[in-house]
């Protein structure tokens, strides 16, 4: 395949003619694009030249575009060419010239951005409050119509967000227990207070680390899955289909997730707390020589029972918050795939932020409870 050739010849009649030959196609010109265009430009400057395009073997829109550009967007009336190639050139000529909008810098852009994000934040808060209201109404309705409670969906949520999360939460909990025990053992030993590792681990893990850890794991694991599920249902118009069938999506999709998470989260976090304490106890045995039996035996004395209740209340509200936020961003997804990935990102970030905010609120509320 010979790529496009440009030749300048003088005919017997003394006329100077530009002869184009070879293949004027993208495939053939790809490597010699600039060279061919330069060669064209060099001869196109002279308006008196005749053009002979009949020897062109194959032409496609790239080739035609190059020739057209070399001509400066103006037909050379006296040019000779094949009918098919004329049609291709004709099509190139038919494209209206476009003015490409210049990108202009906008000095106010940061302020506009700030305002937009703020109003979006309030929009989200408002929408979540509305969602909570609808859920409460649905819950009251279901209390009076217990036959319509979506048990199957609730149990599916408990299984997916709870049972399936057990291995990973146990592993992470165990490792965190080991790490904290290991890091504090030396300091405690230096003060001769090695025995207090039980208090330290007991309070910090049960009250704070266990619930928070599980909440962050579940927000990343199940929260993203919920947003993705509802978001994809929006993209594929499944939610619209549900509505037309008279199934309202909030009690069927959102409510079971919120209830399921409220049930599953405390259970998962008790499990993770147990794993973390076990890890801590094993590390304490290795570092400080405190036996596991002694560790477990002195736990009830070191940690007031109230701490367990606090952990339960915290994880329950974390679970509901994660489910609510994930479903909210799922429902807000616009019906296109790009929007799904944005929703999931925002949803996970928002869920984790809200969990930590709630944690702070609980820390202030219960600051006098559980320490004796």
């Amino acid at each position, binding site marked *: 395949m010979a790529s496009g050739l440009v030749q300048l010849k003088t005919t017997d009649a003394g006329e100077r003619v530009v002869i184009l030959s070879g293949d004027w*196609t*993208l495939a053939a010109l790809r*490597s010699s*694009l600039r060279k061919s265009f330069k060669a064209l430009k060099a001869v196109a400057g002279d308006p008196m030249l005749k053009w002979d395009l009949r020897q062109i073997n194959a032409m496609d829109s790239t080739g035609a575009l*190059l020739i057209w*550009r070399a001509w400066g967007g103006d037909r050379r009336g006296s040019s000779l060419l094949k009918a098919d190639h004329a*049609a291709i050139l004709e*099509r190139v000529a038919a*494209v209206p010239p*476009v003015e490409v909008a210049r990108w202009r810098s906008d000095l106010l852009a940061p302020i506009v951005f700030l305002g937009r994000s703020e109003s979006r934040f309030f929009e989200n808060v408002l929408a979540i409050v509305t969602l909570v209201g609808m859920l409460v109404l649905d819950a009251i309705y279901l209390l009076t119509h217990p036959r319509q409670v979506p048990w199957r969906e609730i149990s599916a949520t408990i299984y997916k967000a709870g049972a399936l999360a057990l291995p990973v939460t146990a592993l992470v909990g165990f490792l965190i227990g080991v790490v904290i025990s290991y890091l504090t053992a030396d300091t405690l030993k230096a003060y001769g207070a090695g025995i207090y590792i039980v208090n330290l681990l007991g309070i910090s893990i049960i009250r704070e680390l266990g619930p928070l850890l599980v909440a962050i794991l579940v927000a990343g694991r199940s929260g993203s899955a919920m947003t993705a599920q509802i978001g994809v249902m929006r993209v594929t118009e499944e939610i619209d289909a549900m509505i037309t069938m008279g199934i309202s999506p909030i009690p069927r999709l959102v409510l079971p997730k919120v209830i399921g998470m409220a049930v599953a989260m405390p259970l998962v976090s008790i499990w993770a707390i147990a794993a973390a304490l076990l890890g801590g106890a094993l590390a304490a045995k290795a570092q400080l020589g405190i036996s596991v039996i002694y560790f477990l035996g002195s736990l009830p004395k070191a940690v007031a029972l109230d701490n367990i209740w606090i952990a339960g209340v915290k994880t329950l509200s974390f679970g509901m918050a994660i489910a609510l936020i994930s479903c909210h961003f799922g429902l807000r997804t616009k019906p296109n795939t790009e929007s799904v990935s944005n929703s999931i990102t925002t949803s996970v970030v928002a869920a984790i932020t809200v969990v930590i905010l709630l944690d702070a609120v609980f820390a202030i509320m219960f600051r006098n409870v559980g320490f004796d």
Partner: protein
Amino acid sequence: MSEPVIDVKGLRTERGGQTIHRNLDMRVDAGEIIGLVGGSGSGKTTLLRVVIGLDAPAGGAVRLFGIDPLNAERRERLSVRRRFGTLFQAGALFSALSVFDNVALPLRELRGLDKRLIRDLVMLKLHLVEIEPRHAGKMPAELSGGMVKRVALARALALDPELLVLDEPTAGLDPDRSRSFVKLVQSLSRERGLTVFMVTHDVDTLSILATRVAVLAEGRIVADGPLDKIKQDKHPFIASFFGTTQPLPKPT
């Protein structure tokens, strides 16, 4: 033309334990516009995917421009992929890219084309499919179904392919757009010898556009030839497919 553009011999494909095609032979020569018809679930799209090298056949040989699109050497495979353009049933536009960038992507992937040339080529392709320049900056999510299809066609044409593979090209287009689509493909085929392999249900498009129709049923090509001849066939599927619909007269 010595070498067929598409050459399928003894093809057998399976999906989920079920055999879809059995000993299927098909040949498409350069410059032909071939329409593949068949009932739903007869494996039209699967055949199309095997031909362009997206799915592996369970048996038999597939040659695209004389090259096995799946098992050839990397360079050859790549060069084959640049010689055909595919229009997927749902458009398959990249949702993260604007209309302009969707069409520009295959051109940019070639490397070495300058920005202005790419811009002009993209505008040319969009003009071909009757997308106005003001839509070039839009995202695929903002387009109607018919526009998605036309942008996808522009993208399939971006590299000026020798073979155009179309899956239900006119589904979702209004009759007017269908007609201009038919015209566009006709003129491209006339000017550049474009080969077209299309799967379609649209009898109008078939009757105007297709130089040859292949009927897929029972896992093989049961009839193959010009539409007028196909219609005489007594095969039960063909009888029911063409029996109820009267094709429109060809426009003059």
